[in-house]
């Protein structure tokens, strides 16, 4: 390649070169958005801050390390000087034990990899605390407990007979009963042999439970016949890590959609980044987009905040989610962003992803606009 002969261009080639140069000069790439420039300047600023902080840390840390080292040396010197000379009273030298790979006893392994709690372990966590403190032996408490056992039994019978009535049955219990009720149900679920009654117990627990029962429900979700009931409870009380793990291992798109919808109802600061990760994964994006339809109040502010994320994939996913949410308020906000040149590319991507009539109209206007046309086409291509 280095020794290629260079031929003199013919007149036709020279003209062609001039036309090529003229065409090359027309090339128009998307301009860097003000947000991306701001993000890059901030990134550079952060790198400078980190370096300055590191410098601040290095000084004191080095001083402390030096002081410790000096202290150790001084101490060793003092100890060596003051140590009594060792007098060997027994001149017979003992042979050193021979160590081979076979003779070394391996230490027992103390750590095991993490696994979800078993049903029994979860029940142990949720067991009745009163028995530990001896409260159950008091007559009043024992009578109340006995009453609850009967009511729980009746409730489970009613749910087993008619699972659709579970909400009505659950309404018979007051909030004050819930803590003791879920502990009672946890114990019953573990000891029950009848499959229909066990299903009814899980159904009732799912209807009434608090976050305390989430580990038990998570382990019950591993049992195929109890999974739908357990998931129903986890949709109510499962935290973000639990819902994330379950959605990752969901058995079908419908199940994943329900779990992701539940995820969107959790604290947006924690839930939205996880949700956007699902949206970026080709295997889960359909379920994630569908989940947005199931949420009455999607975390729109958190999604808009993610349009500033330093990662391009996250910004695009947030734009897609916003486009899916749609609505006049969202479209007005996107129009404001276009007008004020704030995250323009992401706003255009959101409009391109939207099915709303207003959003489509606005995007069409952007496509035809001289100023925004190129960015709009690029945004449409990026989806």
């Amino acid at each position: 390649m280095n020794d290629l002969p260079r031929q003199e261009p013919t007149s036709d080639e020279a003209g062609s070169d001039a036309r090529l140069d003229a065409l090359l000069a027309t090339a128009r790439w998307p301009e860097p958005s003000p947000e991306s420039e701001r993000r890059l300047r901030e990134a550079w600023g952060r790198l400078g801050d980190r370096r300055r902080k590191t410098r601040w840390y290095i000084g004191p840390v080095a001083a402390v390390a030096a002081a410790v080292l000096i202290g150790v040396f001084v101490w060793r010197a003092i100890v060596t000087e003051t140590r009594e000379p060792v007098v060997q009273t027994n001149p017979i030298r003992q042979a050193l034990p021979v160590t081979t790979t076979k003779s070394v006893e391996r230490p027992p392994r103390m750590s095991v990899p993490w696994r979800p709690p078993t049903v029994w372990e979860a029940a142990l966590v949720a067991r009745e605390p009163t028995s530990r403190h001896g409260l159950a032996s008091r007559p009043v408490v024992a009578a109340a407990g006995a009453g609850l056992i009967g009511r729980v039994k009746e409730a489970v019978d009613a749910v087993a007979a008619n699972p659709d009535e579970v909400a009505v049955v659950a309404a018979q219990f007051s909030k004050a009963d819930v803590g003791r009720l879920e502990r009672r149900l946890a114990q019953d679920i573990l000891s029950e042999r009848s499959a229909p009654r066990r299903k009814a117990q899980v159904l009732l627990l799912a209807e009434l439970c608090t976050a305390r029962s989430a580990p038990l429900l998570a382990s019950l979700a591993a049992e195929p016949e109890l999974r739908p009931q357990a998931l129903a409870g986890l949709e109510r009380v499962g935290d973000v890590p639990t819902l994330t793990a379950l959605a990752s291992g969901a058995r079908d798109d419908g199940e994943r959609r329900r779990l992701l919808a539940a995820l969107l109802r959790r604290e947006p600061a924690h839930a939205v980044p996880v949700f956007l990760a699902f949206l970026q994964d080709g295997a889960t994006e359909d379920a994630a987009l569908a989940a947005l339809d199931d949420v009455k109040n999607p975390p729109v502010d958190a999604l808009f905040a993610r349009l500033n994320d330093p990662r391009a994939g996250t910004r695009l996913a947030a734009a897609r989610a916003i486009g899916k949410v749609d609505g006049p308020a969202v479209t007005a906000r996107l129009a404001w962003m276009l007008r004020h040149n704030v995250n323009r590319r992401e706003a255009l991507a959101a409009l391109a992803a939207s099915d709303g009539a207003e959003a489509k109209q606005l995007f069409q206007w952007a496509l035809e606009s001289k100023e925004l046309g190129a960015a709009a086409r690029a945004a449409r291509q990026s989806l």
Partner: protein
Amino acid sequence: MGASVDRTTFDRLVLDQLPAAHRFAIRLTGDPDAAEEVVQDALLRASRGWRTFRGESAFRTWLFQVVVNSFRDHRSARAVAAGRGAGDGLPDDLPDSRPDARPPLERASEAEQGERVARLVSSLPPRQREVLVLHAYEGLSPAEIAAVLGLSDSNVRANLSFARQRMRELLADRIEGERHERSSTPGTDVR
């Protein structure tokens, strides 16, 4: 400059040249989002290796060199992620070399044509793309390009020649169309 710079001066130089580096990355990648990632990575490298800038070359050239290295790593990472072997020498997206079926007068508007040319440049094989962008759009001489890319001067010229030849082929419909229009205009002789 001739002497190494202190960190404050280096910070100022980076901030001065940041927009140029960003535009350069956009031209290389053809995608503003990917370009931002490339520049972020380049900034990290620049921050770590700022002492390697000794002021012997122009700062812009040095920063472009860092951006090119980040761009190459970015491509390799993408190729690995896509399940391909890195460094296959193929562009990410093959350029659309199909001739435009529409008559010239009905073809894309000027803006669309500019976007098309940009897209074709950004989809050339990586080495040719780097050389063409640095030469045609960043205005670097072959010697400067050789310094940025770590190539010999003759290698730069050969890659530039290949890149222009490739672009001539890809834009043949436009070049021919214009020549035809000019030759049909009275008093215009293209030869």
